[in-house]
């Protein structure tokens, strides 16, 4: 028996008499949840970018992705399609994978390139000189800065002296989803992420943050987080205007507390 066939409860009927959708195999959705929009640092599922995902009895998986605009940046779009392809095709029981990006100016180049496992440079022949690893790392560093704010802000609100943050380790921070996420992003970049690793580091060099640089570091962390979250808000609004049907696994705005919006 495969992961995909082991789906939990039988699918529920649609709540408001809307169109019935084929059940989504949990393993498939879980795989897509590991794929993030590199700019927004959020799963493509909760963002609503997964229009549909199915897998046949024979193990043919088909994923259709959609983005907030026709002109979303093609490099990030490519990364999401390629990552979705990798995540789904690695699932046990999947024999063949097809990931299709819909309604985008570069759909053909991206879909064909990912299907052929051609890499970004070859998919955009003549328009790119390097693969996207550096771009991805740049945005992981932003995610680390934003995550630093997410972890530090509650500490400061609870009365922790900013200077005390300099001496704190990750192990000394109370556990939270934000902390787990920060550790994961740091680990992806090859930065220290264990219990004894310092809480505040420069995401480029990995160096400790000095007392002099602390106020600016925290300010930059905050503006990075706000920038990413504001973009996420705009993207969700644009997506809803473009497609009125929620995506598979989408977290609707109404489900996000206003404080986090």
């Amino acid at each position, binding site marked *: 028996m495969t992961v995909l066939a082991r789906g939990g409860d039988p699918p529920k009927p649609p709540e408001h008499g809307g169109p019935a959708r084929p059940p989504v195999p949990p393993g498939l959705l879980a795989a897509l949840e590991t794929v993030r929009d590199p700019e927004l640092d959020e799963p493509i599922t909760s963002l609503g970018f997964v229009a549909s995902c199915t897998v046949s009895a024979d193990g043919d998986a088909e994923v259709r992705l959609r983005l907030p605009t026709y002109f979303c940046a093609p490099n990030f779009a490519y990364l999401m399609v390629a990552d979705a392809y990798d995540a789904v095709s690695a699932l046990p029981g999947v024999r063949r994978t097809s990931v299709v990006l819909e309604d985008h100016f570069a759909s053909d180049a991206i879909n064909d390139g990912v299907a052929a496992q051609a890499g970004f440079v070859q998919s955009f022949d003549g328009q790119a000189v390097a693969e996207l690893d550096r771009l991805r790392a740049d945005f992981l560093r932003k995610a680390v800065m934003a995550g630093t704010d997410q972890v530090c802000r509650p500490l400061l609100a609870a009365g922790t002296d900013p200077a005390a943050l300099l001496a704190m380790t990750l192990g000394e921070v109370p556990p939270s989803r934000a902390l787990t996420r920060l550790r994961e992003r740091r680990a992806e970049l090859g930065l220290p992420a264990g219990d004894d690793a310092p809480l505040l580091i420069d995401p480029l060099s990995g160096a400790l943050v000095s007392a002099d640089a602390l*106020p600016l570091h925290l300010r930059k962390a*905050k*503006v990075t987080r*706000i920038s990413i979250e504001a973009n996420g*808000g*705009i993207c969700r*609004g*644009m997506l809803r*205007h473009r497609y009125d049907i929620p995506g598979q696994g989408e977290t609707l705005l109404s489900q996000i507390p206003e404080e986090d919006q």
Partner: protein
Amino acid sequence: MYESNGEKYFVVDSHMHYWNAAPDNWVPGAEQYAEGWIKCFHAYQGLGPPETHWSLEHFEKYSEDDLMKDVFEDGHVDVAIFQPTDLKEWYKEGFNTTERNALMGEKHPGKFIHNTRFDPRDSDAGLEQLRRNVERFGSKGVKLYTAEWNNGSRGYKLSDPGAYRFLEAAQNLGIKNVHVHKGPTIWPLDKDAFDVADVDHAATDFPELNFIVEHVGLPRIDDFCYMATQEPNVYAGLSVAIGALMYARPQFFARVIGELLFWVGEDKMTFGSDYGIWEPKWQVEGFVDWEMPDRPEFADYPKLGTAGKKKILGLNAAKLYDIKVPDEFQLPASAGTPGAQEVLGEPVAGA
């Protein structure tokens, strides 16, 4: 002019358009791009209040009368600055060209400022066109869209040698203000097209030009803020920031404005409606009424008072464009809250 609570605001809409994106203007073979572009804009309008939404058909091509009513009669705007975007690869006569804007604007003396544009990839012919446009339309500003497609090329950077040649020529022609709009494509595609580092370079090398980064560098507000702090001639164009966030995402809007007040300061922020994406009326009225939420997480942002709002809505842009503002709208010299650099001093700029 807008009056509220006994305060009078002189309103300069520093970023607006008069476009034709209707199917009759689509380039054969490029219809999908022309349609994709205007539908993307239309989706942005969806982030404004529902009662201000237009049908797609109206949005594709609004009339001169619509514009005059929406912007001046209803929209409280005193002077509007046309910002052209050519996109001639997709739109036969261009999307929103210097000519289209100016031919309309010339019928309404004193109401409009006609900015022009250039594209460094147009080389000598582009320089000649720039010279003619400045001469004919009196342009004091240019709008640059770095992601424009041109003859197989997908965009350029402001730091390219070709762009420097144009910036130098523009400066010699009397251009003072460079409005920069980043878009999703650029050569090479593996780089972040929205990166504002090229604006940083150009702003350093052309200290006599002002660089107004439109849409506050969205989606790179963080990079923009940090860069703007270090460059005295870089401004935050608020088009899209107000339109896309003030109604749809008020929490984010407050945070974004707070960050801009902190890093950039109220002396270097300029209002733009981005009409016809959004009408100015609700933006002007909403911004005048807007206040930073009175909660602890907003407490470390500079305050924005009436004086600051007057600067942002019109007085700052009036200074950039030498627009004569009647005395009744003027502020005393020291009014308002100082910008970020005065607050933070050396540590930010030197870090």
